[in-house]
């Protein structure tokens, strides 16, 4: 069972055409692609991030109208580019999905997708507060889920699960807020 | 001297009845709500939970009386009283029996104040009650309260006019603005009551009275889902209780006024039933209208505030004027 699941890489025809289209347009700008369980992932450089996303949305034969989710990821083992931003695009009209990824170094800024899909707003805020990935051009990068005085970036792998960092009751602010 | 004693007895009794009704009205409202919502309502305090309101009252009295730090304190404390004192005053105008009744050899009017301009007085006092809500909204220094107070003010302005005009038809028919004489005008069996010729006025008056009482579907002032509790947001303990109390007193008074104006007041539906005291008929009619108010409250959703104004200005006001004109013509033709 397991060996079979490891090797199955079926590429649906719909995905094939999507990939062909994106590759034809961007060619060498695609840093990597992978298929897994019928899902296509495309890695691009942060500089091309918005361009690829906007192309995927605007190109009529792709028509990814929707950003299903945008999230960050942290791979401490990768020393040069430990952070990753993953976007899942969905085409409602064509019932297709596409995953876009970009890798970032510590402190490197990612361009924002809010200009392409408004729903990226909160996703990017969340990614910023959880990983410390700054989205350049985001108009409203405030903490979303954690308290204002939270310290650290909780979803990074070096952040402990338990502890007393942040989120405590601030006695020093008594009477000021 | 005897007049004064009788006045005192009447006043104390009538007020006692009005006030004594309120806890049970609240109880009945909750029981009815339970009935409409397929649950049982209060059951624990007293037989069938009938003493529930007294328990609530004890709870409210023992609660801390919170006055917000930045509230306009004097007005804040005054506001609940402004709401319910006019209600009591209107009670004095409602006749609960005929004039010049012979009791123990004394001629007694079965009304506390046989005031000549009774209906006008009622309208005037009704308008004063609004100040209670507007003051409460203003003095609380809270945005929700302020919005509630403003809504209430606007609401009252739009409905008082239609209400007043609806009443003029009655005045024309009774040829008087005195409550006692209006009741006399409806002497006889129930088809002589004014709600038949004045059905339009009755509908306008009844619906406007719901708005005046701030009950669903017109309770925009304390719209729980939008304004938290509207003008009552900052009130707690017995001050909040006074608001509730005032609302129920107003409900009793409004029902009594409707019964008096349109449903023959203390008169029995058939002259054959006149042996039953008028007082009981009046209470019965009052309870019926209170039940109507409760029924409507627990059934309908709420209008939006501007839709409410639309109904008041665009439907009821023209309708009331038309009703007045038609009544005036008919009355002048018939009486000649």
């Amino acid at each position, binding site marked *: 069972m397991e060996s*079979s699941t490891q090797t199955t890489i079926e590429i649906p025809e719909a995905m094939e055409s999507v990939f062909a289209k994106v590759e034809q347009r961007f060619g060498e700008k695609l840093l990597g692609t992978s298929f897994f*369980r019928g*899902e296509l992932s495309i890695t691009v450089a942060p500089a091309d991030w918005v361009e690829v996303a906007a192309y995927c949305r605007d190109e009529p034969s792709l028509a990814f109208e929707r950003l*299903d*989710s945008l999230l960050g990821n942290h791979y401490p083992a990768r020393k040069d580019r430990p952070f990753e931003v993953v976007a899942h695009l969905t085409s409602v009209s064509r019932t297709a999905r596409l995953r876009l990824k970009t890798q970032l170094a510590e402190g490197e800024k990612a361009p924002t997708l809010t200009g392409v899909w408004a729903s990226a707003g909160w996703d990017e805020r969340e990614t910023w507060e959880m990983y410390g990935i700054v989205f350049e051009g985001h108009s409203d990068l405030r903490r979303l889920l*954690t308290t204002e005085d939270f310290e650290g970036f909780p979803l990074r792998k070096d952040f402990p699960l338990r502890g007393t960092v942040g989120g405590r009751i601030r006695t020093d602010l008594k009477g000021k807020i | 001297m005897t007049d004064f004693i009788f006045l005192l007895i009447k006043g104390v009794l009538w007020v006692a009845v009005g006030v004594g009704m309120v806890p049970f009205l609240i109880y009945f409202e909750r029981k009815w709500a339970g009935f409409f*919502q397929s649950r049982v309502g209060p059951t624990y305090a007293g037989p069938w939970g009938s003493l529930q309101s007294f328990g609530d009252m004890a709870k409210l009295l023992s609660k801390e009386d919170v006055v917000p730090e930045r509230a306009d304190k004097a007005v804040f404390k005054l506001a609940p009283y402004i709401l319910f004192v006019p209600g009591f005053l209107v009670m004095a105008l409602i006749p609960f029996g005929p004039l010049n009744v012979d009791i123990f050899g004394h001629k007694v009017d079965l009304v506390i104040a046989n005031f000549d301009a009774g209906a006008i007085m009622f309208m005037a006092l009704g308008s004063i009650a609004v100040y209670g809500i507007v003051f409460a909204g203003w003095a609380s220094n809270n945005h929700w309260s302020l919005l509630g107070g403003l809504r209430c003010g606007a609401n009252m302005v739009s409905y008082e006019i239609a209400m007043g005009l609806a009443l003029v038809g009655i005045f024309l028919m009774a040829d008087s603005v005195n409550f006692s004489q209006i009741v006399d005008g409806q002497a006889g069996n129930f088809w002589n009551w004014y709600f038949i010729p004045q059905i339009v006025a009755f509908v306008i008056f009844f619906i406007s009275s719901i708005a005046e009482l701030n009950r669903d579907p017109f309770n925009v002032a304390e719209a729980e889902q939008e304004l938290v509790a509207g003008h009552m947001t900052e009130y707690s303990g017995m001050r909040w209780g006074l608001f509730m109390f005032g609302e129920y007193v107003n409900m009793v008074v409004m029902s009594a006024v409707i019964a008096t104006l349109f449903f023959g007041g203390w008169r029995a539906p058939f002259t054959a039933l006149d042996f039953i005291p008028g007082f009981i008929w009046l209470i019965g009619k009052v309870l019926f209208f209170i039940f109507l108010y409760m029924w409507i409250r627990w059934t309908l959703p709420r209008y939006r505030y501007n839709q409410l104004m639309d109904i008041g200005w665009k439907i009821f006001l023209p309708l009331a004027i038309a009703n007045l004109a038609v009544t005036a013509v008919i009355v002048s033709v018939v009486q000649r």
Partner: protein
Amino acid sequence: MSASDRDTAHPMQDHVHMRKPKPRPTPEELRARKEATRQRVSGSVETITVSMGPQHPSMHGVFQAVLDLDGEVIVNTDARIGNLHRGVEKLAEYRTYHQFIPVTDRLDYISSFAMNHGYCEAVEKLMGVHVPRRARYIRTIAHELCRLSNHILWLGVHIMDFGAQTFFLICFRDREYILDLFEMLCGARLTHSYARIGGVAKDLPEGWEHKCREVVDFLPKRLDEYQRLITQNRIFLKRSVGIGIFTVEDLHTWRVTGPCLRAAGVPRDLRKDEPYAAYDEVEFEVAVEYNSDVYDRFLVRMKEMYESCNIIRQCLDNLPDGEFLAEDAAHVLPLKKNVMRDAAAMVQDFVHVFRGPQVPKGEVYRAVEAPKGEFGVYISSDGGPKPQRLHLATPSFFHGQAVPALFEGEMLADSVGIFGSADIVLGDSDR
């Protein structure tokens, strides 16, 4: 279930035809209208700022919307969430795939089986587990029961937002029947934790099918009763028709999904578009409305409830025999009753509890049609027994984000209804 039966199960249809077609504002008009409101206020008019929530009676949960009001018109909104944040995604990285299932209950606690199910579908996709047919049917039934219970609760709360308090309790009465079914099914009424990787936790208990059939035969009658109370209620129509209109482009760009999207005329339903469980084996219609206002969102959800009853009935009719949990030693927990009797099962249990399942390396994204919208789960695995990263794209998160765009230019009294029509649960959005 014959075709004629299903036609009669749509009393909604008449109501829909009875409605007069309204002139619907074009996206440009809408935008111009909202812009005009903003212009009117941006000048010298003084606005007041009120904080709606987190402790506001009509904010369903601890949602906070800071509203700038010009009189009663909302000109600016700042939506804030996070008061219920529990760090679910961080927790997932410290739990094996099996251990995380109860945590998913706490996402959308109104329809927790849908959350279990979505998560398990994603994990099964990652692991390549084949779910037995019976398990898929049971999942479909449970998922649709969840949708029913969610929509009934939503309906009660939504109508209460408009001030009709009785309706709320009437809806609770009927939701109780569904919760009782769930209680029989898995012992829990709200946090079901019923789905397992590779199937469901328990087989259907004895007599459950009969009970379930009774409920789905009886609920449409209750739904008709609701219709009589609400669908043509003049006050409700006044409060909901033409309020909170969202264009299709806006819906896509804000990632608004589920009934809200279908109310705008987009027949997007993952049950049809990306079938999971047994949805490809049952017949049902996707409820679609076209005006995208509060009223149409109500109609869509009402229709969906009738359809859910249909789906459950079909599943009960065709319920296959067989296993309710996949036999897949590498990925699936063994049955508890076997653990103490069977050496292989005991080892399997031991391995799964102390080490966790064997998972291939890779990343998957799987979305299911939860009652509130599309619930997507992203899992990135590095081959270990715990996810390397797990992300939950929950519908309420995006609906909450879209609220400002929906609110601006509307009246304060309507904001409550609009917010309710988006159907937001804060456990879902804050994670």
